[in-house]
Every structure is written in C-alpha cells, then in structure tokens.
C-alpha cells in the first residue's frame, strides 16, 4: 500500500519505505541495505563515528535541536562506569506523530541507529522508552529486537567486533512529561517521571546515576544514513546550520494532513499550501503552529520562511518537533489556546510551583474568558503569570504552557477582547 499523501517534492531519506510492509521484517530490511551502516560503524573507531555525526550537523529531532554528535562527545571515554543510551520514543507533543511512523514502518532503521549510537558512546545497554499507548508499535519493536538478537546485531560480540550491547524496549504509562529526557530517565528507573535538576546532565549522571545519552527516534534513525554515506552526502540537503531532511507531522485544517519529509531549506509556506494542499475549500488559514503546541503560533503572513531551525526562529517561532498544526478561520483562538493550556496543566508533573500552580491558573482564567466572564485586566494578568512561569522551572513544560497564551495574545488580541467585551467569538462557523 502506498503511504498516504506522498508528494513528489518530498526528499524521502527516512520515510522511503513507509507503506512497504516487506521493509518491516529484518529480511526485507537487509534486502534494502539495512545493517550495512552498522557493519561499517563497527569497523570504525568510536570517535570517528562521533566525528562523522558531528560533521553532518545532525541536530536533535525531539524539539530542542541540540547537535547530536556534540551530545555524544560528552560521554566519558574511559569505560570505567556502566553507561547507557536511551531512545526517546515517548512521542507525546500535541500535533506530532512522526516517530511512531518511523518505528511502525522501519523498526530496524531505528534499532540500527541505536546500536551505532551505543557503539559510538561506548554504552553497554540501550533502552527504547516508548509511549505505552503505542501498543501495536511496541509489538513491532519487540519483534524487531528479537530478530536483531537472532542475527547477531545485538547481544554479545556483535558481528564479531567484540562489542556487546543489550537493548530493552520499556513502555511508559502515559505521562507527557516522561518525554522530557530526565523525566524519561526517572520513569525508566521506576520512579515518577519528574524531570531532574540540570546540571548534572544525563551524559554526566543519567540512568541509574550513570552516563547516558538520550536521543529522539528520528535523530537515531538518521544516523545509519550519515554513517553509511558520509557527512557531505547528508549536507546536500538543508542549510549550513540545519542540514539534512526532516519529517513534518502536519495536521489540523489541511486538505492533505500527514507526514512529509522535506529538506530543511524547504519553504514553510509551500509545505502548508503545496504539499498539504492548504486549508479546506472555502476556508482561510488563521495561523500555523510549526513545531508542536509548545512553540509560538505564526500568522499566515509569517509563513514565508524556510523550515530550518534558524528560518522558523527568524519568523518568530521554533521548528520544535516538526509537529505542524494549521488552524483556519473556523477556529476560536481562545478555545484552542485554552485546550492546549489544559493539556499542559494536566501533564505538569507538579514539582515546580510556577508550573503546577501557574498552568492551573492560566486554565481557569482562559476558561472564564472563553465563557464571556473575563475582565480586561485578565489580559495583563495572563501575560504576567505567563512571563513569570517561563524560564524559572526545572524543565520547559512551564514555558510550553505559557507560550501559546503569550503568542496568541500578541497576535490575536482582538479575539480575546471580543470574548471579554462582547461575550462573542470571531470564529466563522
């Protein structure tokens, strides 16, 4: 079956085999060239593997965009303490659904990336921390892990290299915050998924108090391609600061929502209007959230930019996870923001005061505005609470909750004022 909504302008490095059932099993994967990158990596010194990933400019695809090779280089090289790699497959950012497709269609692409990464950072045990809700994908991954052990890609003395690695698939229990890398580590250890104070960073003190590298699924899936073909090959796509291709999970008011893989120098506007087909017939787009619900919303006038990290930042938002949410003129912005903030209020781990209390107050104030019970003073109050929630907590969830509030007030204050002054809504139903 053809993967829904392919588009000829895509550059399908990661998603090439999406929709091909034969590519899921290990035989099909090997037929398609799978695990040759691993063989090559195991024949290369660890630091050289790190170097090629550094040279490729691959940046973390989970949202923060931290250079992957640099992250790996923080791991100790003396081999004195046990160390770990954790693949963050707890994909839960609203509007993001790319990792699950990578794991569903190409589990071995992900596993191969994990093994190479683990080899490079000298880890003895790797974990895939996956959302418990991905029940079917957990089955796919577990099957793929068994296959990889059977073929000698995992376990003792991998492919005769002398390198040993175990890989465990660990299911989460449905908390968004377990996707934060240190929350993930706590959850992996059997604790509440409460993010840890940083520093120390995971490369110093991660899982079980030992050095750990945490990488996103998409990041790790990109690794075999880079190792096999080299950094220059990878840099044929994208920009100097944002090389390569990226999957965009496009959803919301679009004619053809879905996952699209494009080079990082692609136009955001074309992604929305060309690949995704723009808004439904007869509708105008109001705005687009380009990188998951925790990045600022862009108005239609701000879409004329590259999808690179720096391009979207220049436009006033962030690339984030690449979860693109489009909203057309049928959207009540107050309601949409309230729904997003409610999500964060629900998912706050409750550790830090600004987040635990702040998300709850934002929700309550937004609710009363949406109901038509708001007061004009609520706007500065929202901005005040929002600004004091940001940048003062252990993890960025508090910032994430404040972002849609602050950015939507900046860009759609009229909609708020309509609710407050007239008790009406500007959405076109």
């Amino acid at each position, binding site marked *: 079956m053809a993967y829904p909504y392919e588009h000829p302008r895509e550059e399908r490095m990661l998603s090439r085999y999406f929709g091909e059932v034969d590519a899921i099993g290990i035989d099909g994967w090997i037929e398609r060239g799978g695990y040759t990158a691993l063989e090559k990596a195991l024949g290369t010194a660890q630091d050289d593997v790190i170097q090629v990933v550094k040279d490729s400019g691959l940046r973390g695809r989970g949202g923060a965009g931290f250079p992957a090779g640099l992250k790996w280089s923080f791991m100790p090289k003396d081999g004195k303490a046990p160390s770990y790699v954790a693949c963050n497959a707890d994909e839960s950012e609203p509007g993001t659904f790319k990792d699950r497709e990578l794991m569903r269609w190409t589990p071995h692409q992900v596993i191969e990336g994990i093994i190479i990464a683990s080899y490079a950072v000298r880890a003895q045990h790797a974990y895939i921390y996956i959302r418990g809700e991905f029940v079917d994908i957990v089955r796919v991954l577990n099957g793929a892990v068994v296959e990889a052990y059977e073929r000698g890609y995992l376990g003792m003395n991998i492919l005769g290299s002398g390198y040993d690695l175990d890989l465990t698939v660990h299911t989460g229990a449905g908390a968004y915050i377990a996707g934060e890398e240190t929350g993930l580590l706590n959850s992996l250890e059997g604790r509440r998924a409460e993010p840890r104070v940083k520093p120390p960073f995971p490369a110093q003190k991660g899982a079980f108090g030992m050095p750990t590298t945490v990488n996103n699924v998409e990041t790790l899936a990109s690794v075999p391609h880079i190792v096999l073909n080299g950094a220059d090959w990878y840099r044929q796509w994208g920009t100097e600061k944002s090389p390569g291709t990226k999957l965009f999970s496009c959803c919301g008011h679009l004619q053809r929502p879905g996952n699209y893989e494009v080079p990082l120098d692609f136009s955001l506007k074309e992604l929305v209007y060309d690949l995704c087909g723009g808004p439904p017939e007869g509708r105008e787009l109001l705005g687009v959230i380009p990188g998951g619900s925790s990045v600022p919303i862009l108005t239609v006038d701000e879409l004329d930019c590259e999808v690179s990290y720096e391009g979207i930042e220049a436009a006033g938002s962030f690339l984030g996870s690449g979860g693109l949410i489009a909203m057309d003129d049928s959207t009540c912005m107050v309601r949409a923001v309230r729904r997003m903030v409610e999500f964060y209020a629900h998912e706050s781990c409750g550790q830090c005061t600004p987040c635990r*209390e702040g998300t709850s107050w934002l929700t*309550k104030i937004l609710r009363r505005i949406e109901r038509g019970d708001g007061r004009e003073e609520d706007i500065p*109050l929202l901005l005040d609470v929002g600004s004091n929630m940001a*940048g003062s907590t252990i993890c960025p969830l508090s910032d994430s909750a404040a972002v849609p509030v602050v950015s939507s007030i900046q860009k759609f204050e009229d909609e708020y004022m309509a609710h407050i002054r007239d008790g009406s809504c500007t959405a076109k139903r």
Partner: protein
Amino acid sequence: MIKRAKTTQTITLTIDGREVTVPAGTTIWDAAKELGIEIPGLCHDPRLRPVGVCRMCVVDVGERVLAAACVREVADGMTVQTNSEKLERCRRTLTELLLSDYATESLREQKTGDDALLALARDYGIERSAIELPAGDGRPQDLSSPVIDVDHAACILCDRCIRACDEVQHNNVIGRTGKGYGSRVSFDFNVPMGDSTCVACGECAAVCPTGALTDKRLIVPIQPRNELDSVQSVCPYCGVGCAITYHVDRDANAVVFAEGRESPASDSRLCVKGRYGFDYAKHPQRLTVPLIRRDDSYPKGPLSSAVKGERRKKPGGLVDYDEVMPAFREATWEEALDLAANRLKEIKEKDGPSALAGFGSAKCSNEEAYLFQKLVRAVFGTNNVDHCTRLCHASSVAALLETIGSGAVTNVFADVHNADVAVVTGSNTTENHPVAATFIKDAAADGTTLIVIDSRETGIARHAHHFLHIKAGSDVALYNAMMHVLIEEDLVDHDYMRDFTEGFDGLRELVKKYTPEMAQEICGIPADRIREVARVFGRAGSALVFWGMGISQHTTGTDNARCLISLVLLTGNVGRPGTGLHPLRGQNNVQGASDAGLIPMVYPDYQKVASPESQKKFEEAWGVSLDPNPGLTVVEIINGALVGSIKGMYMMGENPFLSDPNGNKVRKALANLEFLCVQDIFLTETAEFADVILPATSFFEKYGTYTNSDRRVQVGQKAIEPPGQARFDWELVCEIATRMGYSMSYKSAEEIFAEFTSLAPSYSGLDYENLKPAGKLWPCPDPATSDGVQLLFGDGFPTESGRGKFVPVDYQPAAELPDDEYPFILNTGRILEHWHTGTMTRRSKALDAIEPEAACQMNPDDLTELGVDPDGYVKLSTRRGTITLRARGTPGVARGNVFVPFHFREASANILTNDVLDPFGKIPEFKFCAVKVEKAGSAA
C-alpha cells in the same frame, strides 16, 4: 563500594558583585550564605538533599533559565545575581500563586506561629484579598493520625516531608500522587495518614514550612516558640540518647512540644516516643504524697483484682488506682522516711546486711545510680545491688569484660557510615533504637553492605543486602560456621591477630567441625549462604557489628557475644573508623548506671568488689568498711526473697513485677518480703506489694547526666516543676542514708557528679559545664577541646596481657525446647511505641492511642491453622503461666514462633518466660521458651 568523595578543590565566583571562594560542590545558596546573603526559599532545608522545586530561590546566572540556588552548584567564574526586579517579580508571583489557594487558617501559624509562606507574604506585602487569581477547588484535611494534623490545603508541595521520610528516617511512607494541580503528598498508596505504615516519628511535621503537617496538641495547646521557654535536654527513653529541646509553658508547668536538636548522637532526629511521649509526666496518676500501707492491708498480697487472678471489670489498662489506693494512707515525709529507714535498719541488725538488697534503675541519672549503690554498699553494708542491665546486656558485658577488658562499645553507631560492612544481629533496631537505625539505614543506602541476622524479619531487615533468617537460639552455630569459612578461606587478619589477640589455636580447633553444612542443620541457613555472607564480612575493609537482646537474652547469651567478639578479632575490625563492637544499649542510662556501679560485683567504673585494692579505695572515699563479697544479681535477689534470705528491699524506679522472668514467682517473692520500699513516679504493679511508697520526680523535673549507648555523657535539664510533694530521687536516697546513721548531704546533682567522676577514671575531667550542649564521649582526656574518644582499642586492650582473647564456644540449645505439649517457641521484647513495663508510655496520650492493647505476633499461616480470626485472641501457656491476648498475623515471624511484647500487665509476657539464667552474665532466657498456643474467645 561507592562512597561520597571528599573534595578539596575550590571555586571562585561572584555573587551580587562580591567575589567568594568556596569548595567545589557548594551550592549557590551556601556560597551566598558565606557572604551573608540570604536567599528566600521554601523547599530548602539545610538538613535535606536540595531539590529546587519551589523555585523561590531562583537566581540569575546569566542563562536563559533562572537557576534554583539551593541545588545549583557553583562554577568557576560564575556571576550570580540574587536580587533584581525580574527575580523579585518572579518570587512575588510565586508567593501569590501559592497564597491564592492557601488554607484560610494555617495550623502552623496558629500553633508554632512560624508559617514560612505567610512570612514571605508579609515580606512582600501581599494581602490575600487583593490577589486577582481565582481560588482553587479546595483540598481536604486528614486528621487521622494520632500525632500529626495533615492539611492538604496548606501544602505547597515543597517535598520536604517526602525527603525527611525517605532520606532522613528512611521510612518511605510519604510520596506524591497525581499530576499538575491535582498533585498532593500521599501516604503509602494514598490512604489516610493514620491508616498508613507511618511510624509517627514526626520528622515530616518537623521540617514542614507551612500548615500542611503540624504536631497535634498533647498537654496544652501548641504555642509560638518565642512565647515559651526552651530547655536543652535529652530523651528519657532509649540508649540512643537523642538530644531534644523541650518547649515549656511556665504558667501551665508543662512541656508543650519537643524538637530534635543538633548532636552527634541524633542529628536532630527523633522517634515517636522522643517526640510525642513526654506527656506522661503530667499524667493525673502521678504520685504526689508519700504513702504508707494501712495496717489492715496486711498480710501483704496483691491488691488489684487482676493480680489476684479475679476477672477484671474491663480488659486492659494500667494498675487500677481505685482498687489499690485504699490499701495505703497518705503520710508526711518525716513519717514515711523514718519508717523506711528504721525498718531497713532493723532488718540489717536482725538478719545481717546481706538480708537487704536494692534495685536501682537505668532510667535514673548517673548521679542517682552512683548514690544508690553507695547507699546499698556503704549504708546497707552489702553488694546486693543491681538493676535492669542484668536483664538486657549482662551477658554481653560479661563476654566483653572477659575478652577485651571493657564492657562498653568500641565505636559509636553513627560511624556505621564509614563501614564497608555492617552486621546487625538480634536487634529489632528500627523499633528499639529507631534513631540509631536511621544511621544504619543511611549507610546501607550509601554503599555500606548491611547484613542482618535475626530470628524475626524486622524493619531493619528490609534494608539489608543480606538477611539471614536464622532459627531462634542457633546463633553460636552460625557464627562458628562463619569463622570456619573465614579461617578455611584465609580471610582473617594475620597481622592484627599476631599483634593484638591470643587464644586463636583453641578457636581454630573448635570451629573446625562447624562446617557450613553442619551449621545449616542447626540454624536453617543454607551452607552456601553462610559461605557467601562470611566472605562479604571477611573481605570488608572495615566492619562494624551491632547486636541487641536477641544475642544477649539467652542462657547462651555470653557465648553468643563471645562469638561476635571472635569474629571481629579474627578480622581485625577494632579501633579503626567503620569498625567495632556495638551492643546497642536499651535504657537511656543503662551504660551510665553500669558505669556508676549499679552492679553487684563492681564499684563505679567497673572496679572489682573482689579486688582488695578497689575495696580500699572506696572504703577510704566513703569512710566505712565495705563487704568484700560480690552481691546477688536481680534474679538471684528475687529468688532470695522467695526463700526468705532477702528480707528487706529498696527499689528506685524498677518494676520487677512486669520486667522480670517467671512473673508468678516474682509476685510470690515480692509478697514474701518483710519490708519493701518503692520509690517511683507512678503506683506500679510492684508497688502493690510495698510497705512504703515514696513519690519521686520524673525525668523532666530534675537535673542529671545520662550516658548513651555510644558512651556519650549528656546533661538532662530540669524542664518543669515536680507535682505535689514529689522529691528528687537523690534527695530521698540521702534521707534514707542519713536516717540509717550515715550522713549524706549534697547541694545539687552536680556535686554528686563531681564525687562520682573523682572515683571513676573513665569520667575524669567531665563536669556539667563542659558537657553542655551536646555531651562528651568517655573517656575524654581533654574536655576543653575534644568531644571524647570515639574509637577505643586501636592499640590493644585493657586486659592483663593487653591482648583480646578468643573464647571458643560450642553450640548449646536453649534451656527449654518445644515439645508436644508446648510446641511453639516464645520470644519476647519491645515494640516501637512502648517502653518496658509501660508505666510511662501507656500514660502517654499519643503512644497509648497508637498501641492501646497487647498483641502477640505470629505467622499468619500458624494463625490460619489454629483457626484464629484476623485480630482474634489466643491463649498462650507455658509451664509457668498463662495469658490471653490478641494475635496479629506477622509474616516476619517464622512458623512455630510467637513474639509477645512485655509492656502490658494484662497480658504480661513475663508470666510465661523462663527464669533460667546464663551462667556467666546471670541474664534470664527472655528470648526462648516453649509455649502452647490455643484459640481463645476474648481477653480473659
């Protein structure tokens, strides 16, 4: 072994424009403190691991995100701004966020008046009514705990209680539940605190900054600290000797609340008894007037219906004053003291000094113990003086004196942190020495390998890396087998043995036959496990051995202790950090009372009665000639009373009616005495048999020194005035002595202490001034600058040869083994909430509320087999007596075993126990006898 490394590296940084240099690893908070900069905070407490969750202490370090000062470590060249408009706005918003949903009335503000959130609000000038944020849905209160009020509405989720519970006390009861706004602290799996596994140590309420967790009122309403007097003292209960500040309401003459204070022995920690068990002193049943038995109440016998064997009106409870008091009449001090002195004198003249005996108490101070033994020795003219140490560690002391020449611990319990391996054997540490247990649990969580050996799987076993659940009374076989393995595998310290020990050949010969396979048959531990644990012990760089009554209260108690000493000598684990022998002492002053000579065979500081030199020294000091023969021990004195050789007794604070083995025999013996003078704070079961009862002062009403298990001598200070005519124990001893013709007069307890220390070389140099505030360890050659000697015997032992002696011993079974008629094994001891014979703790509101009734502990499978319902009753019978009490299913008790706490007169464990003695320590076998268990309808 992963231990925290100490660092000497330093870091220089700038805080608010000022440069400061601090050790690496210091937090910004502490570095700022160095400069005198106070950063506001709610979740941080210097005693707890910082977590940085309240975010009140955030500072600007020039990063995108503000850093929590309490948890962020300093870095070289870091520039920190602790105060700015942005930070102030942030902190102000935080305060508003917390306050807008805060409890309308803060229980902390109402009680101790130190609610930290309300104080912050005052600092920021925030009026609650002016906050524009919508109020929350309200969060509930939980008043289910007998000692702590929980108000979730006043909880700011600062995590302090969780860390106090998890990391200070290691009880792991409190956690978080829910997410976001629904987050809440929870007990166990979110049950009410009173229904949880909380042990009511109160550490959580002590660290809580708000009204969320507060102490309940005990005697009078809790009031702000600054309206109360604070008295620095110690705890009156166990041998840990926790340092306590008592906050006293002078008008009400009552302790209002207790707080742990800084001390090397307790690090401000307390347990439920120390924190909430002080109110007994104000109980209405305190004795306030001297009492004399009425003429018509002779011949003597039991007075209360329970003791007479009649059916009680209602089950449970303490001595029924209504039943007992009519047998006595009030008297003046003159009359009572004259009567006591005259009767004792008459007996001495008629039957000789050895017809008299005295029981002192390890609950009394060093001064009282010293004076009491002086009275018996110098005035009664006999060495028949003993106290409850006989019933707890007499065998340990006998073994220690025999092998290493000193009866005290060689190292303090807190040094367990430096041990590679710690052994805890025969000790239910979490219940009997709860605060010492916190140090052991700390160490176990931080890299010390903990080996627990016990016939019961108790609380401390849950923290063990190796738990050996041995069969009761099989200790010697196990330790001999461990030594067998150590010798066979050459895990012994040859250098140490060459330099500091003697008698190894005998030990090697004896343990040859104790193969792990042979020991397995006796102690029930698989041979491989014995080998494994022996290797762990043998390979340790440092090992510390703790033991309790499970070792000592056997007819083989001395043998058990000899084995432990041999294990330690064999591996050279004495005299270095993290090594040593530590018999955990029971009473708050059992070490001190023994040091003070409340023992029939030794004068103060273990100077032997049988030594003419010592005799001469004390004859000169006291100006009388002394009896050169060692006196009788506790059980021997009771036996003497039964056969009539002991005719007159003076008891200061002891209650043998409940505490001594074979209770029915004790009762007959007490009734058989010609004269008994009881000096106590309550009318005890023993006092039913008294001719004269003298009301004494409680711990809280007097000055005195107390020596803890570590050998730490601490000053107990007077907190409140005594009730009615009650007088100091030492004054009463002086009165009796003087009336018997030996003039004794002291101005103060301090003066008595000076006399005692002049005769006890170990205490030399100590006085009340240098003992404050945290006490000193004896010996303390230089009290002006030193805390005392922590590690003893690094360079040999105070024995004749200067060497530690191996005393090899064979395994012997207990004296009374189970048979067809009495098929179960009876074990007795204490529980967390109660103290010995319950006279204090059962009159403490909180402790009585938590554990109001006697209950034995049995394996649930045994109870099922006997058809006993959960919480149903059982009848326990031995060859000596029968009691009926509730049975609690306790999986940690092995099948075929019964554990009975001895605090409860209505189901007195010692009616059942066997008074057979260890031949060396003369300690009775409290931990083992044969018992029959039958299902019973209800309490008899």
